[in-house]
């Protein structure tokens, strides 16, 4: 079998050699025979004739030889391809419509699939990545769903969980790297020594971190990523042992990571040891995760996630015995969740992506239905020709393969165009900032995806051929041949098939349009949410402060605030450790003096901030009671704080919050550690505009919190963007080593926080616009055909006195019936889809009557427009011409 295939492939490869050789061989035979006849005494002319006659038809011998060599199917295929290409080029309008439809539909699917593949399907780039898990602490009853893991968690779990081969902890950060005057801010990560062994990929040069390097005295070592090594050390293999300056201190390079090493989507350039003080590792710090530290682990071969979870649960139960806060932690519903790393990382984006893929697929279905209808119409036009050919002996198989060749040719060509459209789609996605999605930086159409797309196109071609072949093979031979009409009759079955397709199309488009409407409305509602402050005219930026000395940091703050407020056009300037809606804000707890938790009442997590300068004025918070915090509070270290409306309402529903005492952390401390509430401000959105629960927030003086993170906000009188350069300059003047980045107006920041809502809404909008267009094309095509089919009938009726209006309304009635059926189906579909995508919606019911009505209105009016043209054409048919068969 294999040998035969090889012989066949040789014959195909050197096809012209094969043909030439065969002709030569046969000619040689005939000439030899002629010569022999001449030698035996036959006159030359007669010999030539006899040799030819005895040999028989050279053409048919050649054909038999080709068949013997297995070449027949290929010749037949080539012939059918030529035939199909000729037919397609004869109907350029049909061909262009079909190709455009396919390009758009396949392109849309390819684009979305590229995203789905990169984010959901492709395994993480580590060996046996399916065994990597992450862990996080959750306190659901305190309103804290995720709180990372603590250093204590890591040390307690190391080597004690049998299901894990290894565990590791890491945290992200930034560091100022380089010699004075030429520093760069680099993204860094602090990782425990077992981080690289857990992932299964370690330094390709040098070594990983050692246990000794997790002590703060001995942690001046660094591992470079390949990118950093290339950029700053020109891939110097002798780099191990050299020093780089990080945050003012010298660090020894001990390793270099291999090219392409990337943990999730992090842009980390340098890795440092996860070094901690012994007291950070103690069990009293078990619940101080705060979302900045995360744990990963690798499951042992054969161990399951459930086993790991059970072992973690058992350990937590055992450890709680010695936990001073055990009761409170239990009341908060504490649990440590083990989840697959990849799945957990993309969990937020998964439903959106799947819905987008469903939308793209619906588009493809509409396109395919359109094509089927157009192809069926084409087939009806050729029914007579095909019937005649069948009568003359064309076999079933021939009819089927001819239809398949034609449809596959179209879909493959459309698939190639779809690849181009997909490439364009990926570009469009990058404008939509899809690369900011988790794992979104790896989206690309590679060879594999292109192959999948073309394979899909081929499958679609075969699927499209089914109805065409069915239509051509149905026993309508006689009626088609006998029918006087040029194109043969349109059978009832074929007509209802076409109409059924139109109804399905309208229904699908209605679902898509309604879905897009729901997402759009949801985005609009989210954008209309007030963040709780006035984000207009506010410029914000993050400052990376390299000082380990707290007083130096405070001195920097003071100088910065002074310089900023002396600038013209600055109305107010303030500092905060973390900006709201930046995605970096975690929750912690505060203990209110005099508040006794009722039975069943969980401890509450709340957002806490350290603020300096005129933060509240700069952000535009509203003051409800008392006063704002000032720069003076921070400077003098006054133990005062401001709470927001939600916090005040929860703890002091009946009295004023002013003058009350609270403590940072989850227990009361000595009286001098307390804070007195001096003001109440309006509640602001903290994690996202679509936050539903109000968790409350407490604002402390910056100086009293020892949280080195720093963001600056400036309220300006002109457009805030214009102040960006001044801000950079002022910071550089104070300390040239301190970089400011992420300088963005606050309202842009808020709009960007909606990227997860905006992109799907926009994509769904594009999809449904295309869907509506496709429906219009489909209806137009089918109705035009119906009019052309019934020319004669219309002619007769007009000759008998029918008015144009009657003719027109006859066709409009057909369209209207289809439209109504499609809309009803579509409404049901829209309701189901809306219910299923409830998680994506914000303050929008799953079936919004206005949106549904609008969708139906749009599709209805466009469909009616699409059938008005052919109906109008019907009224202009001249009875004389129609009856004459012109």
């Amino acid at each position, binding site marked *: 079998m294999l*040998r*035969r295939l090889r*012989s*066949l492939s040789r014959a195909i490869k050197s096809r012209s050699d094969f043909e030439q*050789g*065969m002709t*030569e*061989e*046969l000619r*040689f*035979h005939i*000439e*030899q*025979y002629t*010569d022999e006849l001449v030698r035996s005494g036959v006159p030359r002319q007669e010999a030539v004739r006899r040799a030819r006659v*005895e*040999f*028989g*038809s050279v053409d*048919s*011998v050649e054909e*038999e*030889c080709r*068949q*013997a*060599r*297995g070449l027949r199917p290929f010749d037949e295929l080539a012939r059918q391809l030529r035939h199909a290409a000729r037919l397609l080029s004869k109907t350029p309008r049909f061909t262009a419509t079909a190709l455009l439809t396919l390009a758009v539909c396949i392109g849309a699917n390819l684009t979305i699939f590229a995203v789905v593949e990169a984010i959901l399907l492709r395994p993480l780039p580590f060996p046996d990545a399916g065994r990597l898990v992450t862990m996080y602490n959750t306190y659901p009853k305190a309103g804290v769903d995720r709180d990372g893991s603590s250093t204590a968690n890591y040390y307690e779990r190391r080597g004690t969980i049998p299901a894990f081969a290894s565990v590791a902890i890491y945290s992200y950060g930034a560091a100022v790297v380089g010699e004075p005057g030429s520093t760069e801010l680099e993204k860094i990560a602090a990782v425990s020594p077992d981080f690289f062994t857990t992932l299964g990929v370690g330094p390709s040069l040098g070594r990983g971190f050692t246990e000794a390097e997790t002590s703060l005295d001995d942690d001046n070592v660094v591992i470079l990523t390949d990118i950093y090594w290339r950029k700053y050390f020109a891939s110097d293999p002798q780099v191990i042992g050299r020093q780089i300056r990080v945050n003012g201190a010298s660090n020894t390079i001990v390793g270099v990571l291999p090219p392409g090493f990337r943990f999730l989507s992090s842009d980390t350039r340098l890795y440092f040891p996860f070094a901690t003080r012994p007291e950070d590792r103690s069990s009293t710090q078990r619940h101080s995760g705060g979302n900045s530290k995360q744990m990963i682990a690798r499951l042992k071969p054969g161990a399951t996630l459930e086993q790991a979870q059970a072992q973690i649960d058992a350990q937590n139960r055992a450890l709680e015995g010695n936990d001073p806060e055990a009761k409170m932690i239990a009341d908060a519903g504490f649990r440590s969740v083990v989840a697959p790393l990849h799945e957990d990382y993309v969990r937020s984006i998964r439903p959106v992506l799947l819905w987008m893929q469903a939308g793209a697929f619906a588009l493809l279905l509409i396109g395919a239905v359109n094509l089927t209808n157009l192809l069926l119409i084409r087939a009806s036009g050729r029914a007579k020709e095909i019937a005649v050919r069948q009568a003359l002996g064309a076999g079933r198989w021939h009819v089927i393969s001819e239809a398949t060749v034609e449809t596959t040719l179209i879909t493959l060509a459309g698939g190639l165009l779809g690849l181009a459209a997909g490439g364009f789609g990926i570009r469009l996605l990058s404008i939509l900032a899809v690369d900011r999605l988790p794992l979104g930086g790896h989206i690309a159409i590679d060879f594999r995806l292109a192959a999948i797309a073309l394979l899909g196109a081929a499958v679609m071609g075969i699927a499209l051929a089914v109805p065409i072949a069915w239509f051509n093979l149905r026993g309508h031979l006689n009626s088609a041949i006998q029918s006087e009409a040029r194109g043969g009759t349109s059978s009832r079955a074929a007509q209802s098939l076409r109409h059924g397709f139109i109804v399905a199309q309208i229904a699908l488009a209605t679902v898509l349009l309604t879905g897009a409407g729901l997402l759009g409305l949801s985005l609009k509602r989210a954008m209309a949410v007030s963040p709780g402050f006035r984000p207009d005219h506010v410029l914000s930026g993050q400052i990376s402060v390299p000082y380990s000395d707290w007083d130096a940091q405070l001195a920097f703050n003071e100088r910065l605030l002074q310089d900023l407020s002396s600038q013209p056009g600055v109305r107010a300037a303030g500092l905060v450790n973390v900006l709201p809606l930046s995605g970096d804000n975690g929750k912690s707890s505060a203990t209110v003096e005099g508040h006794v938790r009722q039975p069943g009442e969980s401890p509450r997590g709340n957002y806490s901030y350290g603020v300096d300068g005129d933060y509240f004025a700069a952000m535009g918070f509203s003051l409800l009671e008392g006063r704002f915090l000032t720069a003076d509070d921070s400077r003098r270290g006054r133990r005062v704080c401001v709470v927001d409306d939600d916090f005040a309402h929860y703890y002091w529903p009946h009295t004023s919050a002013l003058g009350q005492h609270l403590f940072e952390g989850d227990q009361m401390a000595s009286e001098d550690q307390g804070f007195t509430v001096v003001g109440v401000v309006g509640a602001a959105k903290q994690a996202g505009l679509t936050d539903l629960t109000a968790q409350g927030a407490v604002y402390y003086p910056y100086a009293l919190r020892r949280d080195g993170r720093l963001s600056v906000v400036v309220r300006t009188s002109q457009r805030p963007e214009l102040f960006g350069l001044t801000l950079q300059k002022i910071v550089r003047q104070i300390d040239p080593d301190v970089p400011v980045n992420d300088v963005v107006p606050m309202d842009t920041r808020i709009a960007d926080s909606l990227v997860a809502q905006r992109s799907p809404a926009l994509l769904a909008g594009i999809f449904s616009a295309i869907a509506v267009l496709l429906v219009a094309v489909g209806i137009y095509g089918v109705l035009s055909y119906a009019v052309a089919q019934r020319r004669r009938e219309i002619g007769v009726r007009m000759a008998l006195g029918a008015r144009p209006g009657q003719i027109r309304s006859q066709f409009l009635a057909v369209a209207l019936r289809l439209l109504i059926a499609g809309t009803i189906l579509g409404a049901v579909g829209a309701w189901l889809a809306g219910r299923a995508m409830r998680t994506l919606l914000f303050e929008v019911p799953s079936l919004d009557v206005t949106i549904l009505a609008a969708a139906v209105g749009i599709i209805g009016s466009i469909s009616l427009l699409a059938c008005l043209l052919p109906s109008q054409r019907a009224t202009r048919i001249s009875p004389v011409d129609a009856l004459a068969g012109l």
Partner: protein
Amino acid sequence: MGKPAELLPGTLDMLILKAVSLKPLHGYGVLQRIQQISRNALEIPQGSLYPALYRLEHQQLIAAEWGVSDNNRRAKYYTLTAAGRRRLREETAGWNRLASAIGAALSTTPEEV
């Protein structure tokens, strides 16, 4: 010598293999050789020879190579491959069994029944 006999179906392949096994031959040579070794008792329709040759080449029972004929013309010469030799042996044995069986059957006299 009477009228040449028609070939039984399936026997042409066997005869081609036999002809080619004696000496490499071009297509016309194969025809002549079959007529020669069958003492002109078999008639080969000329047109059916080539499809058979191409089929055998496709099955790699014979191999083809371009060479030069006696009268100095370019011609395609066929030789037997190892697989072809095996097939010829099998077919010859099969044919002999069949021929003797049929011969025995046809020579049966009433006494032997």
